[in-house]
């Protein structure tokens, strides 16, 4: 069906074989298997949506900053909080 359409290069669709419904294609797509484990998530990771909207996050920010600045001299300097941390999300449907 596509063979007769005009084309810049007549050899463009030479390899094209239209699907024959009587003879379905037996090709399965290749599954990607990673060759390293650098990008695996930590085993206990739980991705949860942020319960607080951006406005509330800004309200909480000064309080959290003060807490962090108070803790810093006492504990070891901890790395910057990763954006995805296991944390219980406040369920929006419960009171």
């Amino acid at each position: 069906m596509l063979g007769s359409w005009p084309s810049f290069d007549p050899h463009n669709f030479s390899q094209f074989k239209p699907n024959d419904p009587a003879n379905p294609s037996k090709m399965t797509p290749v599954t990607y298997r990673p060759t390293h484990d650098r990008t695996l998530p930590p085993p206990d990771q739980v991705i949860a949506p942020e319960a607080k909207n951006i406005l509330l996050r800004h309200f909480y920010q000064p309080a959290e900053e003060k807490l962090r600045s108070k803790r810093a001299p006492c504990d070891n300097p901890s790395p910057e909080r990763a954006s995805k941390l296991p944390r219980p999300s406040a369920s929006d449907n419960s009171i």
Partner: protein
Amino acid sequence: MFRSNNVTARIFERQISSPAPGTSVHCARRFYENIVPCHTIFDIECPDILFRKFSDDGQYLITFSRNHQDLVVYRPTWLSYSCREQDCPDHDLPSKANKFESFFTQLYSVTLACSGELICKDFFLYSEKNQFGIFASSTAQIHDAPAVGGAIQGIPSIEKITFHLVRLEDGVILDERVFCNDYINLAHSMGVFLYDDLVAIVSLRYQRIHILQIRDSGNLVDVRSIGEYCREDDELFLNSSTQCMSIPGRNRNHNVGNGPDHTNQMPEGSFLSGLKQRLLSFIFRGIWNEEDDPTMRMQCLKKKFYFHFQDYADLVIWKVQFLDRHHLLIKFGSVDGGVARNTDNHPAFFAVYNMETTEIISFYQNSADELYTLFELFCDHFHSSSKNSFYMNFLSTHSNNIHALEQLRCNKNKASSLPQFVKKMLSTLPFNCQSQSPSPYFDHSLFRYDDKLISATDRHRQSTDHPIKFISRRQPNILKFKIKPGPESGNADTRTKKISSFLFHPILPLAISVQQTLFLQPAVMKILKRI
């Protein structure tokens, strides 16, 4: 977006191309540039009712009877008319196109207020999920009410305030909640905030925030009462402690029950209320943490906290709104400002309170630049709308619209004093619940209009004789439609002050304009629609 302004071309373009991700509603709204309520019907015979507003999903028109006793609900409908003649555009529409009944079908009329009570005509909250409406009726206000039973001196009292939960589909009153000898600001729903299925009612007289839940079955259920107590079991704990302390004097009358009676056990003013304690300790800790040096710390505390201690302790709750299901934005101020119409001259403070942890998260004065910055950037989040309400997510504010932001910046530059400007902008917080109309005609990216004459905010305005123009944004200088509030022939009496209110249907190109004087003259009503 569309390449042409022609509606037919736009429809064809819509058939073949899909809008950019996340812009489907904005794309669909562009059609409102083509379909505007350009035709006015005046001299309409309408029933003697007081118009409140259209429900936010456009299903109902809420009105009250003139005697403030009945709720009358209409269904907005749309006429259709077809003409097979040669010169159709020159034909007049049939006479029923000018009738009120052609646009609004009365569904029912139900009496809400008993004798002695009047329905508050400015109060209506709509729960879109279940199509429930909340209405309020009250008896007359008593101004010099004595401060008994834990009440605050200086706040008037209303003998009975009733909130009615009505199923708007059929007018059945599902539940009621009565407050006796209390004062709740009912005008423009100021004292009540609805978020999803949670209702916050501010009792100014007893300084409590009652949180109720609307169940799907139609029941109003008490969740908690914040003010005197923060957690649900604070009252139990305090009562059991005072009982233990007063065991030797058992002959005295101990009344361990709910309600304000039990406060008579403790001498008046011995304990600050739970919420006040949270607030004062938050302020104290904030000032404490500012300085590390003990001497400087003490000086700071003396100057900033102890010097103003009584002012902080005397603060009263003025108004409340939900920021999400767990957080409240509470406005505090002095007692005089709680019931005043104009609160600009009274000092005010804002606090964000988490109902679950019972903690104050932040505290600002009404001139705080930090709070104003958050207001400028995230105004949408102050108009907290629940996930159930679709159209309320597309209100045009200065945080999501460049034109509205330009207008705000322009006003800011023109202001004589920046702190005054900040105070004026923050005085709109907390927002009144459901006070913004979701109509696309108020979208700043579609139309330009004079904010002082008309806006999405639902309130009465002083009427002008000049028509209010809606000019297309994308095609500057092209007038799309205009509204003339008064009678078509002009007002005979130009001296009487007139107020106008405009009710825009959220979806249809239909609007009602009502102009009335302060005296009980019949209102001039017009319907604007698209032919």
